[in-house]
Each structure stands twice: as structure tokens, then as C-alpha cells.
């Protein structure tokens, strides 16, 4: 096992080291796994052995937020409520750090093992989440392969950095929400060859940037939030004429690739790269 570990990345070594300290061989891999968070849904679908994953959330089937929406059609769906999940008799529940705490507590009180995953704020977190999923599902090798493929593709993308001064880009979505400089979106943006506006404004965490402030900051690219089905006035600001005068026709849209820490974030990077080439 160690031989394969040495050939892989540092992050993997750290995670595998943790895995080794837990006697993973003492218990068999869970056979009835239920996921109650969009991001753990997709990680589990990537990694689970056939028949191992019982159900994923409704959101996993929504192509406006999930990159694996089609794959999710093949799974049962749940609504993240303790009652239905308990009745499914899972031996492992996968949840995000910010998944409804009452649900998680109740499931734990009922004696069900719940594994919590941190939302990925960087590519390093993304690797760690994949490896953690591999470990809890007993699929370490598959996880290591996915991480290795991710690293190879990332290195190829980084080798092809566009020349010249870096233009400024900002994400901007409903109610004027802009992702912070320490976020998955920021790493996608910087890998694609842009500086993130949040970095220039000194905003580490996600925050609300008024339309006026965005227009005055005058970024080279505005990456708009993906607008959802139905109507919300909170999203109307994305149709504001001022934004269109500012961006011309250069605005990009945050596809589902931007939502979760999955290898698909590199598709988002490539999308920005090609968009950028088209604009020049």
C-alpha cells in the first residue's frame, strides 16, 4: 500500500497517513450509504462501489447545480430529513459541515454513523475531501486515482498559463454576492489566469458587493451566478442595465462546475480560458 502512496501527492500522503492510524480493516466497508448534501452526493457517486450508495439528495438531479445530474437519475433521492433517512436503515450517512445540524444530531442519537465533510474552499480541500470519501467508503484506491488524474490535468493547465498582465475577474450572483479571495471560486479564477477582485478589495470570505461598488471597481470579467428556475427578485440585479454596460458581452456564467469541490472545477477553469481567448 505504501508504495502506491509514495507515488502520489503530498496531500494524499497526509490523508492516507490518517487513514492508516484508524484500523480500517477492522470493520467492513459500509454497504448502505445515504448522502444528504449536494457535494457529498457527487463525491459518493464518483467513488461508491455498485450498490453501495442507497440514495442522494433531490438537488443531485438538478442540472443547474449538479454536474452528475444524469448519473443521479439512477439513484433513489432523499430530502435530507431524519425520518426518511432513518427508515432507510443506512449504516453510514454522508453530510456536509453546514448540513442541517438538527438532522445530523438526531441521526447520531439514533445510533447511525454520520461522516461530516468540510466544504472545499480550495483545490487542496478538494483533494482531501475525495480522499476522505475514498476512506469512509473503503475505496481508497479509486480515490487516489481520481486525485492523481486531477493533479495531472491541473499541472497541464498550469503549464499553459496565458501570457501578459492578468485581467481582473469577479464572481457576482444573486443579491450581489461575491465569493471571497479564499474560496474555491477564487482558485478557479486564478488558475484560469485572472486576478480575483475580492483579493484586490481585501475580502477573504464571501461578501455582498453592491452593484455600484462593482461598477466602480470595473473588473475585466464578471462571472455571473447561474440563474435558477422560477423567478426571484434577488436575481433581478443580474439583469441590471448597468451591469450590461459594464461587461459588454464578456460576462461568463457560473456553471454547476463551480458549486462543489469536484474534479469538474477544472472544466470551469477551461471554460474561463476559452471564454478569455474568445474575447481577445
Amino acid at each position, binding site marked *: 500500500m505504501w508504495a502506491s502512496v509514495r507515488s502520489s501527492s503530498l496531500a494524499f500522503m497526509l490523508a492516507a497517513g490518517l487513514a492508516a492510524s484508524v484500523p480500517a480493516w477492522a470493520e467492513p466497508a459500509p454497504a448502505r450509504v445515504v448522502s444528504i448534501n449536494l457535494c457529498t452526493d457527487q463525491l459518493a457517486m464518483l467513488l461508491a462501489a455498485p450498490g453501495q450508495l442507497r440514495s442522494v439528495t433531490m438537488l443531485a438531479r438538478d442540472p443547474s447545480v449538479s454536474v452528475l445530474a444524469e448519473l443521479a437519475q439512477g439513484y433513489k433521492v432523499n430530502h435530507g430529513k431524519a425520518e426518511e433517512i432513518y427508515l432507510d436503515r443506512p449504516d453510514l450517512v454522508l453530510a456536509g459541515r453546514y448540513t442541517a445540524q438538527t438532522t445530523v444530531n438526531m441521526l447520531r442519537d439514533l445510533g447511525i454513523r454520520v461522516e461530516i465533510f468540510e466544504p472545499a474552499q480550495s483545490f487542496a480541500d478538494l483533494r482531501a475531501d475525495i480522499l476522505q470519501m475514498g476512506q469512509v467508503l473503503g475505496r481508497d484506491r479509486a480515490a487516489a486515482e481520481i486525485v492523481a488524474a486531477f493533479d495531472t490535468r491541473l499541472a497541464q493547465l498550469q503549464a499553459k498559463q496565458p501570457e501578459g498582465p492578468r485581467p481582473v475577474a469577479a464572481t457576482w450572483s444573486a443579491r450581489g454576492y461575491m465569493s471571497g479571495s479564499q474560496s474555491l471560486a477564487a482558485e478557479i479564477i486564478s488558475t484560469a489566469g485572472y486576478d480575483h477582485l475580492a483579493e484586490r478589495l481585501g475580502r477573504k470570505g464571501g461578501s455582498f458587493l453592491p452593484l455600484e461598488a462593482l*461598477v466602480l471597481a470595473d473588473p475585466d470579467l464578471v462571472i455571473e451566478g447561474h440563474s435558477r*428556475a422560477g*423567478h*426571484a*427578485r434577488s*436575481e433581478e440585479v443580474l439583469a441590471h442595465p*448597468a451591469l450590461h454596460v459594464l461587461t459588454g458581452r464578456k460576462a461568463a456564467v457560473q456553471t454547476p462546475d463551480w458549486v462543489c469541490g469536484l474534479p469538474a472545477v477544472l472544466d470551469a477553469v477551461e471554460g474561463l480560458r476559452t471564454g478569455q481567448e474568445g474575447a481577445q
Partner: protein
Amino acid sequence: MNRKLLAALTFAVLALFLLSLLTGVADVGPIRSLKALFWGGEGPLDIVMREIRLPRAILAVMVGGSLGLAGAAMQGLLRNPLAEPGVIGISAAAALGAVLALQTGLAATVPLALPGAALLGALLGVGAILFLAGAGGGTLALILAGIALSALASALTALVLNLSPNPFAAHDIVFWMMGSLADTSFTQVAVAAPVMALGWLLLARSAHGLEALTLGEEAAASMGVNLRRLRLAITLGTAAAVGAATAVAGTVGFVGLVVPHVLRPLVGANPARLLPASALGGALLVLAADIAVRKVLPGQDLKLGVLMALVGAPVFFHLIWRMRGAA
């Protein structure tokens, strides 16, 4: 006296309009801002002044004017100082109409469907109030009918927004109940203007009928006022003005209550003179509130309803105080 009052109000509206243009998160000097507004090109500050601040200030005047006018007209018709579109649930009914138009997608496909649906909601609201409280009904009937209509329309609005597939729709409940002019554009100005203009026209033409009505229905009828037509004009005019205002700014309450209350003594309680004064006063109040929300919490969307309730509640207390004195 009246001319002086209208001149003073007009001057104040112009002054606050200018101040509204100079209020925003960006700390830019007034001269540079106004230069960018009038002679700007496509620079960032020019866009901010022309596409963000100008339509917002114009909408504040339009929304405030409509609500002030509608409040004064409703109070004249029902001869009750509490008959205000926000208080008696007409705005809430208009909001329900607007939300239905938006969530069914009608607003995106049919031109003027948004203010039209809000007008229809408001019309049903005014109709329900007139039916339940009637011209002869007392204050108690009016308030009870208003509470019932408000509660019903607000609950249905919240229900529709919660049923929406859009995760941000539920957050919109605050906007529809408290009102805001944040991030409005000329799109909203164009959406509201035609329907509002219809409302203003109908209400302005009712001024003399309302004046005669102060003498009582029989006296007004004997003076040649067609009461049915007057009622119809005010109902439709109020629905159009309040509907269009609500469709773009949400429920902005208390404007039609506070403004006529303050201005009534200054115009000798004459409805014909109260209407234009209330329109200007409403514009003044909403402009002031919209400046204040940006000063109190710059860059955040503090809702207009918060400030309106702070101004409106004391007027209620004053009315109660006066009622106790009368009793």
C-alpha cells in the same frame, strides 16, 4: 397660502432628488458626480450615475407621489383618516398580484403584465374593502377589513414564494412586505410609468368630486357629482397608482397615512388642494427614506418599510390620542 405650500414642497422634492443622486456607496464629490451624470460617457462613474442612481431617484418620486396621492384620495372617499393603501391591505393585495405574475412567468412574456397584475390585485383589494367596510361603515369595520385583507394577501404571497423552485424566492418575502428601491433601473421606471400615469389622471380628475363629498353624499349629489363615477374613478385610480408602485418597489406602507395627516391642516382640509400637496409630500417622504436607508447601512439593502414604520407609528399614536380627546 396653497401656492406657497406647493412651491415649498416642490423645492424640497428637487433638493432631496439632488441629494438622492449624490447618495451611494461610492464616495465621490458632488461636482464630479453631476458632471458624470450630465456629460458622462461609458466610464464606471458615468454608468453609476446614469444607470443606477438616476432611475432610483426617479422611482422614489414616482412611488412616493403615487402612494401619497392614493392615500389622500382614499381618505377623501371613505372620509376616514385611516384609509391608507398599506394599512388596509391594498398594497399587500397588489404585491400578491405582482408575485403571481412573476412566478407564473407571465411578467417575462407579456408586456406590462407585472404592473397589470399588481393593478388587478389592488383592484380586488379596494373592491373588497369597499364591499366589507363600505362608504358608510365605521372605522372599526374599515380596520377589521384591512387586517383581514392584509393577512390573507401576505400569507398567499409568502406561500407562492415558498412554492417557487428558485431558492432565492423565499428571501424575496422581505422585499414584498417591506419594500425597497435598491438596484432598480430604467426598466422598472418604464414598467411602472404608464400604469401610474393612468392612476394619477383618474385621481386628479376626482379632486372636485371629493371636495363636494366633504359636505355629505346628498349634498354632493345635489351639486351634480356623479357618486358612482367618482367611486369608480378613485377605486381604479388608487389600484393603478398603488399597483404600479408596489410592482416595482414592494409594499411601502404608511406614506398615504403620514403625508395627508401632516398636510391636511395646511390646506384647510380641502381635498382638492390636499391631492397635489400629498403627491409632492409622498415623493418627499420616500426620497428621504430612500436616502436614509443608504446612509444608515451603506451598501446593504435596508428596507424602506423599516423607516416608514418608524415614521408611521407616531401618527397612529397621535390619531388615537385625538380620538380619546374626542370621546
